[in-house]
Structures are given as structure tokens and as C-alpha cells.
């Protein structure tokens, strides 16, 4: 249990007659940047809200830092920083005053931590401005500052780059990478901007219709998204036989739409097309390809939907 910073067991949340979160078994190792990926309404935010204690599970358990009961879970929550759904502040207070409220609530001694975190998120110059005059991006930065103030061991960030301009996105990405590497902070980051998550995540959880349909490390994902030749022919079954008998390869995958992913002979597309055509197949397409996270997620979600 203790090897995981966060582990959920059959975590479920039911609203009226709908399972918003359904039997989720999530495991996050210490030091991970866990990309939590799902469509809008998939259950990402509800999962994070359950972990943060903002709502109660209908069934299942949450183990934070090895906690075994509710009391330990509540104590463990003192080690987490959160930014959930949208950053929340007192609009009539300044950024510094908002951070002071959080500092007092958490009982962090000294005010140096406020200056440090303001500098980290790039709000040092505007710290004495009232939050109501902040732009969306500045509010997002302050939300991240609030989450980071207590030097948490686990950061739960729900759509943290929403509203940030391109430079802001890069800065926050670098900041998260830095606190993960320098301080060993484990980060759970949910986002629908998959390309952003792909740049920093070290492990992934894919959620769809409340169910965690896959969890894998970045290495495993790279393996699954590896380069291949995408082949489209008029007869898939015969093409597979030809690949096995003439090219002596088993490194292929047949997609639900009949296309074939060939993971061998990557530099020999001419040879592959020649062999296929010599065996009477009509070749529609043969192109070198590499799946992106979006492609992988899309195929995962489509596969899940077709299974239902």
C-alpha cells in the first residue's frame, strides 16, 4: 500500500441513478506526474473531488499516503494541494492576502512562503492587486500558487492550464516539471488538452463514462503509440496471411475498421506494397505513421464505446 501516494479501491459515486464514478481503481506512485485524461463529463473532476474530500463516495475507499481509515485520510489530506474545477478566491482581497488566508488555515509558519510561491508562478509584481481585477490567466496562476503554498507532497490539479496564454502554458508546464523533479512532488493533472499532458506526464489514467479504462506508464504508452505502417487493403484477412507467410512477421495489429498497423519493415514500405500487390491485393493506402496521445485516447474511447 505504502508504495503508492494515492490508491483508490472500487471508488464509486452515484448521483441519482447515474454512476458518475464507477469502480475506479487508481494507483499513483510517488514522484509521478499522472495525466488524468477523459472527455468532458467523464468523471475526472468528481474523482478529484472525492480524493480531496469535497464529496463522499457512494462506495469504495481512498488511501492517501498509506492511510487506513477516515481519520488518517483527513490527516493525509493536509499534505495535498488542490486546484479543482476553477480557482477560488476572495475577489476583494489581494493575491497576497488570499495566500495569507491559506497560510493561516494551514498553519504554515512565516510569510516567506508567500513571496516564494508568488515568484514561482510569476505574480510577484501584481501581488498587491485585488484579485477581482485579475485576468483569467492570472487567476489560474494564483490558483496554482494556492495549491503549492504549503509545499504539498501531492498536487491535484484539475484543468490547471485553462485560460492561460501560450507563454503561460509553457511557464506552468516548466514549473510543474521543476517542482516534480526538484522537490519530488507527485502531481495528478487532469486536462483535455492532451498534447500538454503528453509533454509532462510520466503515467496516465484514461477515464470514460466514470470507468478508469486504462492506466499505463509513459513508457508503455510510447510503446503502444510506436511507429508503424498503416495499411489499407481490399481484403484484410488475406493481407494478414500474406504478411505472415511472405514477410514472416507477427508484429501487426488489425484495427476495428479493417486497417492494419504493421510495426516491422518500417523502412521497407515499397517492399511491403510490392508483396501485397503481387499476391493479388488491391492496396488502398500504405503510410508511415505514429500515434499521438489523441489517437490513442480516441481509439481507446471508441473501442470502449463499441464494447457496450
Amino acid at each position: 500500500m505504502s508504495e503508492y501516494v494515492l490508491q483508490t479501491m472500487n471508488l464509486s459515486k452515484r448521483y441519482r441513478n447515474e454512476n458518475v464514478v464507477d469502480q475506479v481503481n487508481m494507483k499513483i506512485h510517488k514522484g509521478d506526474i499522472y495525466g488524468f485524461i477523459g472527455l468532458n463529463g467523464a468523471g475526472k473532476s468528481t474523482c478529484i473531488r472525492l480524493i480531496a474530500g469535497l464529496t463522499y463516495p457512494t462506495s469504495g475507499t481512498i488511501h492517501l499516503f498509506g492511510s487506513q481509515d477516515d481519520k488518517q485520510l483527513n490527516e493525509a489530506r493536509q499534505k495535498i494541494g488542490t486546484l479543482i474545477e476553477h480557482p477560488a478566491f476572495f475577489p476583494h482581497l489581494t493575491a497576497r492576502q488570499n495566500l495569507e488566508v491559506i497560510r493561516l488555515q494551514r498553519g504554515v509558519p512565516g510569510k516567506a512562503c508567500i513571496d516564494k510561491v508568488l515568484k514561482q508562478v510569476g505574480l510577484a509584481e501584481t501581488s498587491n492587486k485585488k484579485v477581482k481585477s485579475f485576468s483569467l490567466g492570472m487567476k489560474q496562476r494564483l490558483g496554482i500558487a494556492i495549491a503549492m503554498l504549503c509545499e504539498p507532497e501531492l498536487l491535484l490539479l484539475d484543468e490547471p492550464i485553462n485560460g492561460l496564454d501560450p507563454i503561460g502554458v509553457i511557464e506552468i508546464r516548466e514549473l510543474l516539471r521543476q517542482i516534480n523533479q526538484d522537490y519530488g512532488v507527485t502531481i495528478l493533472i487532469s486536462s483535455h488538452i492532451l498534447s500538454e499532458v503528453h509533454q509532462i506526464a510520466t503515467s496516465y489514467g484514461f477515464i470514460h463514462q466514470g470507468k478508469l479504462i486504462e492506466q499505463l506508464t509513459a513508457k508503455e504508452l510510447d510503446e503502444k503509440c510506436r511507429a508503424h505502417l498503416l495499411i489499407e487493403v481490399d481484403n484484410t484477412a488475406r493481407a494478414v496471411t500474406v504478411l505472415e507467410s511472405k514477410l514472416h512477421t507477427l508484429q501487426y495489429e488489425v484495427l476495428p475498421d479493417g486497417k492494419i498497423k504493421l510495426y516491422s519493415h518500417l523502412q521497407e514500405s515499397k517492399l511491403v506494397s510490392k508483396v501485397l500487390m503481387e499476391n493479388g491485393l488491391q492496396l488502398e493506402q500504405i503510410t508511415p505513421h505514429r500515434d499521438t496521445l489523441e489517437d490513442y485516447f480516441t481509439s481507446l474511447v471508441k473501442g470502449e464505446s463499441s464494447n457496450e
Partner: protein
Amino acid sequence: MNNLLRAEWYKLMRNKVLWILSFIIIGLTFLLVLLQYLDHQGMFADTGVKVEIHDEATEAYPISGIKLFIESIYSPDLFLTVVLTSVLGVYFITGEHANGTIKNLVSIGYQRSKIYFSKLITFVSGSIMLVLLFAISFAIFGALFFEIGVWPDSDLLFRTLQMLLLSWLFIIAFAAIVMFFSVIPRGTGVGLLLSIGFYFIAGAGLRMLSYKYALAEKIQNYVVYYRYSTLDVNNLSLANVVELTMIPLCTAIIFIISGLFVLQRKDIS
């Protein structure tokens, strides 16, 4: 709990509504004392209008800052107290549900009961401060327009203290009621409507019914709103003191338990 109380106090002291209400109280008392002063100068002699906060207990004393201070404690205004506690409570408590900052607090891992009590304690302190500000403003403006005056005899001082403590107990009950209605909604408007609406039903409404129905009259005797408006410490027996203590205390306990029940089960968003 100590951290929570410090944070709540920090927020209360920077709450705009608290300061707006304070300025309104100061302005209102200034006007009331000014009117008394003008009346004292014979300005309204021809009109027959008499401007005076009158209480038998202080009748013997000439008008002064101290006399106005004591009289304001002796004559608590129910409607003003209810409105002040409701407005402060709703903006202080429901405001956090409306702007979402309650999320930051709950996700830290504090028990919700501790969060509830830290807010209630701070809110009660703020409400008592506002009601006290009335008396203090009367004392200051009274001293400026008339004279400081002399301290009354020890018997009157004792009764003033008794009145002050009892009225604080009632303010705790009012605050517990407002707190209950403040944790239910997510919008300050609804919170205000529920808090003041409850006063109109259980206070003014019940009072009207009591003129017609004996049962309503009996119930009214155990309702904090009515008992606060008829609070009188002159010639109190021990049984009266116990009753006047138990009614606000029981009311506060019932509403605190109900409020805790709501917050414990509430989805924070």
C-alpha cells in the same frame, strides 16, 4: 482549530460587509443622538415631537454619554439585530460557498465540524461587535453632544451587565439560526431570503398569530425573537433567569446540530 480561528478572524476583519454595517451603525447613532440634542435644544418644541430613548431604569439620570450607552443596552432593537446578524452571516458564510473558497478549506482535511465551529465562533464575535458598536457609538456621540455623565449605582450597573450577557446569549442563538440558513444555499441572495424570511415567520408572523390563537401565544414565549424583544432584567427571579438562559441556549444547540448535519452531508463545489 486555532489555525482555523486565526484564518476566520483574518477574513472577518477584511470583510467589506462588516465595515459597511459598522459605518451604517455609526451614522445611524450619530443621527439619533443629533436628533436628541436638537430636541434638547428645543428645536422641536412647537411640533410636539419628543425624541428620546426612554427606559425606566435610567430615568433618574440626566442625558449623557453613559446614560445613552446604558439605555441602548436596555432597549435592544430586535429587527436591527436580526438584520445585522443576517447580512453579516450570509456574506461571511454563504459568500464562501458562492465564491468557492470553502473548497480550499475542506480539501485541507479539517473535520467539517471544526470548520463549522470556527466560522460560528468568528461570526458570533462579529455580530456581538456590531451590536456593541451601537452602545459604544451612543456613548461617544452622547458624550460629544451632551456630557460624559456619571456611572450609575452598582445595582443598575449589575443589571446592565446582566442585560448585556443575556443579549449576547440571544445573539448567539440568532447567529446559530443564520449560520444554519447560510450553509444550505450557494447564493448569498437565497441565504439572506431564508434568514430574514425565517425571522418574519417565526418572529413577526407568530406574533400576529398570537393575538388570535392561544397556542401561537404559548409557542411564542419560547421563541428567541419574541423573548429578545421583551427582554427585561428588572425584578428577575431565578426561574426567569434560567428560562431566559435556556431559551436561547436550546435554540442555538438545535440550529447548530441542524447546521452541522447539513454541512457534513453537503457536496462542496
